[in-house]
């Protein structure tokens, strides 16, 4: 079945990447449609981080291409892809720890506005940036903590801030690397509920280990094993796929 190419917001086509003899990414293609959450799962060592880097821009693929909303971003750097509409969150929270929650969010809004070479007017008083930042903080539920120092936040709050900064970018596509990482049961449930609503902002390519979240959220799931996508489809299809069961559960069938 052919996809409506104009509809696809993230289009990863036939990526290949080898490190010497090791084929880390083997003909990987993924698409993301508006309003969709597409989960990428796979055992450890499958090559998820290598793939993420090729999509986000830190690693050059041997062949293949990446497109955001029709634009070919393959030759672009990480910075340029962020400007082209990629909102990325990291597996290990990557925030400016000395800053307040609000400052981190304003940083994101500033990046989105692109007007960084301004040297005189105080940035934290710029109404437009503050409004954008507060909107994102309200959406993730951190608005009350805006003045808190990031280093004083709990782990769960940092994961929330991570998402808030991505929100300020008003991205075309979210690339989320294990947003549940380190969250306990209730934190994961909250994040899951939140991500469910987030798809209205922009579709999400969700790389996750937490299967409850994946099956609750994903419209489509792709399974990455040894650099190849071995299966791709709905949650029900994936659960029933024999190759997936072998990859995850080994030869023994877990009843």
């Amino acid at each position, binding site marked *: 079945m052919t996809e409506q190419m104009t509809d696809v917001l993230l289009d990863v086509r036939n990526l290949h990447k080898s490190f010497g003899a090791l084929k880390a990414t083997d003909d990987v293609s993924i698409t993301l449609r508006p309003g969709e959450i597409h989960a990428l799962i796979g055992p450890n060592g499958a090559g998820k981080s290598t793939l993420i880097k090729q999509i986000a821009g830190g690693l050059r693929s041997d062949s293949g291409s990446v497109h955001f909303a029709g634009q070919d971003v393959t030759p672009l750097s990480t910075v340029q892809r962020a400007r082209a509409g990629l909102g990325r969150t990291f597996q290990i929270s990557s925030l400016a720890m000395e800053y307040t929650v609000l400052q981190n969010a304003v940083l*994101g809004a500033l990046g989105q506005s692109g007007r960084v070479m301004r040297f005189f*007017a105080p940035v934290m008083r710029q109404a437009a940036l503050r409004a954008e930042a507060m909107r994102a903080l309200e959406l993730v539920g951190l608005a009350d903590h805006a003045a808190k120092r990031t280093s004083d936040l709990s782990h769960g709050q940092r994961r929330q801030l991570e998402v808030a900064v991505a929100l300020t970018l008003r991205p075309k596509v979210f690339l989320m690397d294990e947003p549940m990482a380190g969250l306990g049961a209730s934190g994961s449930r909250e994040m899951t509920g939140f991500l469910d609503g987030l798809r209205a902002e922009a579709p999400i390519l969700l790389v996750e280990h937490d299967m409850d979240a994946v099956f609750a959220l994903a419209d489509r799931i792709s399974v990455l094993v040894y650099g190849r996508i071995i299966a791709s489809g709905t949650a029900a299809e994936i659960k029933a796929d024999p190759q997936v069961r072998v990859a995850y559960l080994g030869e023994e069938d877990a009843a």
Partner: protein
Amino acid sequence: MMRETLVNVFLFLLLPVTALAAFALDEPFIITLATKAAILALAGVGLNIALGLGGLVSFGHAAFFGLGGYAMGILAAHAQSYTPIMESPFLIEGTKSMPIIWLVAIVVSALAALLIGALSLRTSGVYFIMVTLAFGQMLFYFSISWPAYGGEDGLSIYVRNGFPGLNTLNPLTFFAIAFAVLALVLLFAGRLARAPFGLALSAARQNAERVESVGLAPFRLRLVAFVISGAVTGLAGALFADLNRFVSPTMFSWQTSGEIMIFVILGGVGRLFGPVAGAALFILLEHVLGGLSEFWHIYLGFLLLMVVLFARGGMIGLIAGREVAHD
């Protein structure tokens, strides 16, 4: 009022009060010391933009200090000997007018910082430190072996340069000029830190990956910071050479780079008034301790060591406490 603001006000008033008191007590030498402190503080404020705000450990900032000094020296030397610097294709004559000298010093230092920064910022960590040191050394050795402007012996300027409408020979007047420049630059640096550029630059220091992921390029931010930083330190160099009416290769030396770093660290790296505190402390040590013992550098060394090991925020950090995240 926040403690740091109180400390800043104190530091801001310290130098002019000292100078005025010295004037009242007819101690022109102390006015000169206050002037020296203001100028060295200016050099430190320049470095602090790259180091404190940007996190760039430049061990070669003497390159800009020296370029500013030699800009002054060359312009003034040609003016005092009535020979033009260049006759073709353009006529460029010397000058002893401070505003013009400052402009030249700023432009030359900024261009040098652009070139040095563009090359050095492609490296990071210890490589960056070494490359910046190397560029400083290059200029040092060049100035020693280029005979036209004194070489190792340096260049003397007989009369202090002029400022329209003011008698610059008067120590208090020259102090006022230097302090006014320092005050203006502090105002600018303070605004810079709070501006969009400052937010992004400091964020890049804390987490470059985060800055990239919001679509801002750390390299460009750092290069601009390096250029501004070099320009300010260059301006300080021109003033310093004017104060001493002498410029020599020592202004390019790595020891000078180290000293500028010491002012910044003693006061508190990243604090706006840190270099003012550090420079004032350094001058105090140099003249009080130096009067007591010719080996006063040992005490400076121990003090620096103690600050680095136990008082990371420098003097301002000790007094005003941990930096409050603003807004």
